[in-house]
């Protein structure tokens, strides 16, 4: 349970960080809050030659209101976001499910997005709200949709020399539903579902958070949140089984959560 050795850099500007990633590529790992990377280092699931600590880069911090929504710097800690005045309630609700409060003091928005755990709240929220991810490298910058970004479990569409700089969310006030089933409060969700506007997402179920397009079409056609919706969700939901829950359990409970979050979003 001790990490293998690595060299440590703590750049003080984005340009300096990007030149380190340009130099080291796949041998370097970015350290955000460390709540996912440090255990991966300890279990030697990650053995980078170089760790680049992003803690002292001012360009990566902060939350700003934009013309069409919100721009959240990759190094914004969950606890900082919790204190932002006027934060849409769906974001506050999602954050409340992220780990324990002792994790949220250190964990960052960008760290969760890049780590891309299938049960992570930020990947689910980004998919639900159709977030845009701003990436930068010493070659330039580019923007990806959440769908393009989430390639596979624990695999974001980042080139080895690229860094996630910020996430942009559209205006997302108004009614929503966000629910998880977990063994104890703060654990990773066995199953989760969320609904906002005409969008529905299931997470913790498949390889990456899944937009349930069949359910969305059903709602757009005026269908309600009853048994019919649950059946649709069960049919289209990708679900995997593991030591914590079988695929059948995830599909059944996930579909029930879909029914609940759609109901909550409609009733509010």
């Amino acid at each position: 349970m001790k990490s293998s050795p690595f060299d440590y850099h703590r750049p003080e500007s984005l340009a300096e960080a990007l030149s380190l990633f340009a130099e080291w590529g796949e041998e370097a790992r970015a350290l955000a809050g460390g709540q996912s990377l440090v255990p991966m280092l300890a279990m030697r699931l990650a053995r980078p030659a170089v760790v680049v600590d992003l803690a002292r880069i001012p360009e990566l911090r902060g939350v700003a209101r934009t013309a069409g929504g919100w721009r959240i710097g990759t190094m914004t800690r969950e606890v900082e976001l919790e204190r932002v005045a006027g934060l849409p309630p769906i974001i506050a609700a999602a954050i409340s499910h992220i780990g324990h409060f002792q994790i949220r003091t250190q964990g960052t928005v960008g760290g969760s997005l890049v780590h891309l755990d299938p049960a992570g709240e930020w990947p689910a929220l980004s998919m639900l709200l159709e977030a845009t991810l701003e990436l930068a490298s010493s070659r330039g910058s580019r923007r990806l949709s959440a769908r393009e970004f989430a390639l596979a479990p624990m695999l974001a569409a980042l080139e080895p020399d690229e860094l996630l700089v910020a996430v942009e969310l559209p205006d997302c006030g108004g009614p929503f539903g966000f629910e998880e089933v977990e063994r104890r409060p703060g654990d990773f969700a066995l199953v989760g579902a969320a609904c906002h506007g005409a969008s529905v997402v299931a997470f913790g179920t498949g390889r990456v958070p899944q937009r349930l397009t069949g359910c969305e079409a059903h709602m757009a056609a005026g269908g309600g949140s009853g048994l019919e919706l649950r059946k649709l969700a069960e049919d289209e939901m990708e679900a995997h089984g593991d030591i914590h829950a079988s695929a059948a359990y995830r599909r059944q409970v996930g579909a029930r959560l879909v029914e609940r979050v759609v109901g909550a979003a409609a009733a509010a």
Partner: protein
Amino acid sequence: MNVEISLAVNGREWAGEVEPRLTLADLLRDHLALTGTHLGCEHGVCGACTVLLDGQAARSCLTLAVQADGRQVTTVEGLSEDLLPRELFQCGFCRSGFVCSAEALLRREPLPRAVELPELLAGNICRCTGYEPILDALSARLPG
């Protein structure tokens, strides 16, 4: 390549060279002989290693010592004995983590409500399952 860091632990400055891979928990225990901070799971689940980092609760097993450079660390040794007295606990292994989490909760504005405690403290595991005296003692200090 070792890195020079300096930090304040329980109000006392410490400076030295550390390996980048050293966790804050191991720095406290092995280099500063502050063995009140305990290591259980070493991946952030059990809560035994919880300390205060700049006044906020954090897992010292999920924090590298280099990340604590320039910051204030408070461990169980720097907190009041009366907050959660020893006799509330059976084996006591989890106590330091509970004390640091409790201190962080008591510093919050607004204070959490007593009824919220079981969920808030879900990040600290007591393997003796002696939760009730711990929760009762802390509840007594909180509103409703």
